[in-house]
């Protein structure tokens, strides 16, 4: 049975430090199993969130050796036996205690997204949508709200000042999912520009890299949205296009 040393952050809003726990790992165990083992045997008050333990609820996000991941989907056989592994809370949000952070930012942003408003149904009262027309939106519905994409997003990770006017990747794909609903009638472009702050995103794709659901956040969500914004309202693009459009090509 391999033994690991977990360096776990212990502390609260006013500070804390990493403490070492030596833990055995049985076959097939994941980081979350070891955290539970620490709770049951060494530190009953070690705070962490979890629910499903199967990568479906998105509760147990943490930074494992500096990398944002779900603790329940990080297998111990990724690591050399005997190694020291650090576990820290996700950095973008204020610490409540140990591995638990205050993610209320995300619930505030969720409420701001203009909700769906559907077209009237067909004459028989039913809605009809073809599978190929909902495939793209269904990809965004896979989001488990683990907020790892929010954690890793450079716009807010170390810039508290951006938080009021920036929603983050989670809510860009939320909007994308609504916009790509075949029967939706709402124009969210004003919201996306002014409140969600899509202009601040500089497409570094970090969000896509950490997504445990492998959603193509940047390519399928953010980039098409930026393009639409550019088409619609961006005054510079509009001016450029007008300028280019009005230019006489040399003969």
């Amino acid at each position, binding site marked *: 049975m391999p033994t690991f040393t977990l360096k776990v952050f212990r502390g*609260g809003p006013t500070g804390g430090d990493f403490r070492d726990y030596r833990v055995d790992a*049985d*076959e*097939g*165990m*994941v980081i979350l*199993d070891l955290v539970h083992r620490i*709770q*049951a045997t060494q530190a*009953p*008050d*070690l*705070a*962490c*969130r*979890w*629910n*499903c*333990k*199967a*990568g*479906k*609820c*998105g*509760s147990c996000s943490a930074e494992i050796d500096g990398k944002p991941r779900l603790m329940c*989907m990080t*297998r111990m056989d990724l690591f050399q036996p005997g190694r020291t592994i650090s576990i820290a809370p996700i950095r973008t949000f204020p610490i*409540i*205690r*140990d591995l*638990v952070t*205050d*993610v209320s930012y995300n*619930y505030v942003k*969720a*409420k701001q*997204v203009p*909700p*769906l408003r*559907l077209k009237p149904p067909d004459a028989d009262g*039913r*809605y*009809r*949508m*073809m*599978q190929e027309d*909902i495939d793209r*939106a*269904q990809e965004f*519905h*896979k*989001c*488990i*709200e683990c907020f790892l994409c929010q954690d890793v997003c450079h716009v807010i990770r170390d810039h508290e000042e951006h938080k009021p006017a920036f929603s983050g990747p989670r809510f860009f794909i939320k909007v994308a999912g*609504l916009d790509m*609903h075949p029967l939706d009638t709402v124009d969210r472009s004003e919201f996306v520009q002014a409140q969600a702050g899509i202009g601040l995103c500089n497409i570094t794709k970090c969000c896509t890299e950490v997504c445990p659901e492998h959603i193509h956040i940047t390519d399928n969500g953010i980039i098409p949205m930026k393009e639409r914004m550019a088409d619609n309202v961006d005054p510079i693009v509009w001016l450029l296009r007008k300028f280019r459009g009005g230019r006489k090509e040399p003969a």
Partner: protein
Amino acid sequence: MATPEYETHEHDVIVIGAGGAGLRAAIEAAAQGVSVGLICKSLLGKAHTVMAEGGIAAAMGNVWPEDNWQVHFRDTMRGGKMVNNWRMAQLHAQEAPDRVLELERWGALFDRTKEGLILQRDFGGHRYARLAHVGDRTGLEMIRTLQYHAIHQGIDVYMECKVERLLKDGDRVAGAIGYWRNTGRFVLFKAKAVVLATGGIGKAWKITSNSWEYTGDGQSAALWAGADLIDMEFVQFHPTGMVWPPSVRGILVTEGVRGDGGTLKNNKGERFMFNYIPEFFKGETADNEKEADAWYADKKNRRTPDLLPRDEVARAINSEVKAGRGSPHGGVFLDICTRRPADYIRKRLPSMYHQFKELAGVDITREPMEVGPTCHYLMGGVRVDADTTQATVPGLFAAGEVAAGLHGSNRLGGNSLSDLVVFGRRAGLHAGLYAKNLAGALRVDQAEVEAAGRAMLEPFSRSGGENPYAIQAELQETMHSLVGIIRTESEMRQALGKIEGLKERAKKVRVDGGRVYNPGWHTALDLGSLLTVAECTTLAALERKESRGGHTRDDHPYTDDTWAKVNVVLRLRNGAVQVSREPLPEMPAELKALFQERK
């Protein structure tokens, strides 16, 4: 000890639990124009509904036009071995299609038929393909849809807030007291009506598909407040949980694998379910592989025994393993890789593919899965009025897994998600109406509130040294080995003795650290309800001297007609749980006729 401090919130209706049932109840209560508070033990959107996989059962007839509510009603009653509350089963079958269409209206994107309607899939015990679904992540779609609809309805949401006890004003409910998990501070809710939507009790067993939240909070709170519980002996072991590696043992493998063509095999490669077709289902179950395989495409054939109701399949797997025909890690094989193309499997079962690949290193498009029974669902719970969902305490309502009756002795797959929205809506509606009609101010007993606060703080100041995690683990071991799939009187008596011992030890639990987000403390507080529901299940299981659905007795192996007419009822009297048998409501003749038509 000093008087504990607490904050107070007042609502017409509070809903405890924010899975499918709680969210739907809160939405409907808010639609009545009353003030609503929604209390969740975890963050919003993380409740157990998020883990539901296969789909939501509703006789919409999109795939098989022959389907209708009567067929769904009949399947549900037969799946529950006829001890369901017939009126709940009727309402459920009649209203489920509207609730699914409502989810669609609120933004849910279900998989589609070629005509662009909601696609429906086959599942155990359902005559027709009936489950609306989104691949194998239907619960996620449902909870997100309800969650994002609810946040625009003026509902106050209290996240990571755990309710410990209900409060009463005379005979009726007047609110609840609990604590914020992230501060440890106490919170008092004054409310005219309370909807319980707290889910199940699976955390009392060792191998379970349930998360840490499922500690029987609602069942216990209702019992302590004087409400009746029924059917607590009926616990569903889902036939297919993961068995390997040990750390994932119990995690659910959707019935959709079999619904989409997967079969169960033993270590000899035999499709053993053909050897376990009970008399009760012979008429509708295929007895040979050819007919079973043809059933998927043509419902004129009889259904594959791989899709018998869950109680039958779980017992069959248990028998195969005991007879030495199991898989290397003590389960059986679930094979879809030799039956369906890899692309189809990845498209229909993406989260199963992902789950096995990442957690077990198994590629389910190339290898069979190893599966075995896992504690999954409680059919019993709070006794409610079918139409209003009101419990036997005025002002107390219950919906979803915490409520009893709809599923009888065994729930069909897919009937849980539909239960949540059908009865969640009814609970919210009737709680809202009840609150509107209730005049006068709410009174809660100050002394009761303070006593509850002091009780919650006790573990910090005890001199005893019991570890809450150790007690929880011993209870799980006890229930697993003594009150599991197959039960017998002597073992259950032994379990009662152990539970009694654990209750004593729980009084000596000591926790260290502070009140801010302290899981040791939370675990200690959850022990009260967990031990209570474990005792209730054991008492009810001792009482029912027959085998039926999710209750199998080695010492009473047959179904007994005299037991088909009664519920086992539990209520608290003078501090002790009292057990009695009471007659089931009688089904009207026109519904009885549905069971005569075909065998």
